[in-house]
C-alpha cells in the first residue's frame, strides 16, 4: 500500500470521527465512550450516515474513473449513459403510481430498475460498443435526453406532494438510506475495487484506444462491455441508496489523475478513498451549516467540488 493511500485512509477515519461527533450538537469522542448507552441512537444514526457517504462517494468516483477511461472522454461520469434519467423515471413512477406509500423499497427498486433498463437499452442500441465507444456515448446521451423528457411528462401528471418527493429525491439524500440497502452497497464497492485493481493494466490499455488494447492482447469489445456494465451497476446501486448525487463521479477522478497520474493500478483505491472523503465533507457541511434545515447533498457537492476542481485546473495550467 502506498503512502498516499495510507494518508487517504487516515483522512477517511478522521472525517468519520468528525462526522460522528459533529451534528445538530457537538459531542466529543470521550462523551460517546463514557455515555455510549444513552448516545447509542445518535451514534448509530451518524455512523451509518458516514458509512453511506464513504460507500456512495467511493462507488461514484470509481464508476466515473472507469467510464472516463473506457469512453476516453473527460466529461464522462457515472450517469453519462443515461442512468440518472432512467433512474428518475423509475423513482417518479413509484411516486406517481402510489407504490411509494405501500412499500418502503418501492422508490429504490424503481430507480435501480430504471437505471439498469436504460443501460441495457443503451448497450443493445450501440451493439455493446461494436461500433466504437463514440456510438456507446452517443446512445447514452440520447437515451438520457429521451428519459429526461419522459420524466417531464410523468411530472406533469404528478400532484404537488409527489412533485416535492421527486424533486427532493433527485437532489440526493444520505439520511434516508435504509441499512438493508447500505450493506450490499459496501460489499459491491469492495468487489468493484478488487475487480478494477485486477483489471488495472487492461483499463490502462483500453484508455489508450481499442487498437492499442487489441495489440496489447485484450479483447476491446468484451472489455468495454464488462467495464461499462460494472461501473454503471455501481452507479445504479448508489442511486437506489440515496438518489442522484452529481459531480462527485466527475471531478474526483480528474483531481486524482491530476495529483497522482493515470496509471490505474495506482489510483483505483485512491480514487475510491478520495471520493468517500469528499462526500463525507459535503455531508458534514450540509447538515452542520444549518442544523435544523439540511442543505441537499447534491447542492453541496457542486458548490464545493466545482470551485475546487477549477482551482486545481488553473494551478496545473500555471505550472
Amino acid at each position, binding site marked *: 500500500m502506498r503512502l498516499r493511500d495510507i494518508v487517504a485512509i487516515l483522512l477517511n477515519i478522521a472525517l468519520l470521527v468528525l462526522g460522528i461527533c459533529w451534528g445538530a450538537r457537538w459531542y466529543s469522542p470521550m462523551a460517546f465512550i463514557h455515555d455510549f448507552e444513552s448516545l447509542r441512537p445518535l451514534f448509530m444514526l451518524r455512523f451509518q450516515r458516514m458509512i453511506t457517504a464513504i460507500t456512495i462517494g467511493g462507488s461514484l468516483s470509481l464508476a466515473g474513473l472507469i467510464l472516463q477511461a473506457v469512453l476516453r472522454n473527460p466529461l464522462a461520469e457515472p450517469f453519462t449513459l443515461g442512468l440518472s434519467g432512467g433512474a428518475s423515471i423509475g423513482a417518479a413512477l413509484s411516486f406517481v403510481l402510489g407504490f411509494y406509500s405501500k412499500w418502503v423499497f418501492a422508490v429504490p427498486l424503481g430507480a435501480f430498475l430504471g437505471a439498469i433498463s436504460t443501460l441495457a437499452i443503451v448497450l443493445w442500441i450501440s451493439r455493446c460498443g461494436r461500433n466504437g465507444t463514440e456510438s456507446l456515448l452517443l446512445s447514452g446521451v440520447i437515451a438520457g435526453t429521451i428519459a429526461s423528457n419522459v420524466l417531464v411528462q410523468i411530472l406533469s401528471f404528478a400532484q404537488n406532494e409527489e412533485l*416535492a418527493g421527486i424533486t427532493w429525491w433527485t437532489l440526493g439524500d444520505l439520511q*434516508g438510506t435504509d441499512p438493508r440497502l447500505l450493506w450490499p452497497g459496501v460489499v459491491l464497492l469492495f468487489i468493484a475495487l478488487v475487480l478494477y485493481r485486477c483489471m488495472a493494466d487492461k483499463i490502462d490499455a483500453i484508455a489508450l484506444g481499442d487498437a492499442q488494447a487489441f495489440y496489447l492482447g485484450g479483447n476491446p469489445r468484451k472489455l468495454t462491455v464488462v467495464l461499462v456494465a460494472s461501473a454503471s451497476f455501481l452507479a445504479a446501486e448508489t442511486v437506489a441508496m440515496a438518489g442522484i448525487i452529481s459531480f462527485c463521479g466527475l471531478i474526483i477522478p480528474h483531481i486524482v489523475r491530476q495529483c497522482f497520474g493515470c496509471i490505474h493500478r495506482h489510483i483505483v483505491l485512491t480514487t475510491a478513498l478520495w471520493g468517500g472523503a469528499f462526500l463525507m465533507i459535503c455531508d458534514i457541511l450540509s447538515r452542520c451549516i444549518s442544523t435544523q434545515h439540511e442543505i441537499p447533498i447534491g447542492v453541496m457537492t457542486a458548490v464545493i467540488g466545482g470551485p475546487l476542481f477549477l482551482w486545481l485546473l488553473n494551478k496545473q495550467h500555471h505550472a
Partner: protein
Amino acid sequence: MNKLLTILLLITLPLMAQEERIISLSPALTELVFKLGKGRQLIARSEPCDYPPEVKKLPVAGRFADPDMERILTLRPTLVITNDLINPGVRTVMENAKIRCIQKQCSTIEEYVEWVKLLGDALKCPEAAKAECERVEREAKPLPKMKRKVLWVIWDSPLMVAGAGSLADGLLQRVGVENIAGNVKIAYFKSSYDWLLEHQPDAIVWTASKRDNLKKHRFWGNLKAVQQDRVVMLPNNDLIQRPGPRITEGYKLLAEQLRKP
C-alpha cells in the same frame, strides 16, 4: 296564462343572465363555493377537486393552478377562481376572452376567511359569507397556550416538515401548541434526523404516507413521541391540509388529540 308565463320569463331571464358560471382550480375553493350555496353555478373543476362528492360529475378544466385553456374557453365561464397560476400569462388570455379571474393565495385560516369575504361579494351572497366567517372564527377559536412541542411531518423520505407560514404552523398555533420547526421561516423544508434526536417533540402530526410499525423504524423508533404512541394520524388528511370549510373539523380533531394529557 300566456301573459303570465311571459311576465315570469321576463323577470327570471335577467336574473339567470346575472348568475356567474364558475370554474374552480383549487379543491379548497371548490368546497367553499358549495359551502356558500353556489355549487350549482360551478361548471367545471380542477383535477384534484373531489369534495363534495357531487363535484366529481363536473368536467375537469385543468390541474391545480394549471388551467386547460381550450377547455375553459369552450365551457364559457364568467369567473375563474384559483390560488395560483403556474403560467401567469393565461390570465391575459382569460381577460381577452372577457373571463374574470380571481387569483389569491389560500394557505392559512386567515387567508381562507379573506377568500370567504371575497367570494361572498363576487357571488352576491354576503350573508352566507358572513355566516361562514363567523362559523370558522367560532369553531377554530385559538386555544390557550400549553407547553407541548409538536412536529408536523409532511413527507418521511426525504424528511419534510412544516415550518413558519404554513397551514400546519397556523393550525398548531391555534391549537395552542408549539411547532418545533416554527422558528424556520420556510413553509415546508427538509429537516434532519440528527436535529430531531436532539430536540425531541412531545407529539407528531403525521400527514405523510401511512407507515406500519413506526416503533420498529431505525430512526422513528428512537423518538419518545413514537414510543409513547403520541403520533396523530387522521383518517382523512384533507381535513388538515386543505384550507377550506372542513378545516374546522380537522382543527377539532387535532385539538382533541394534541391537547389530551
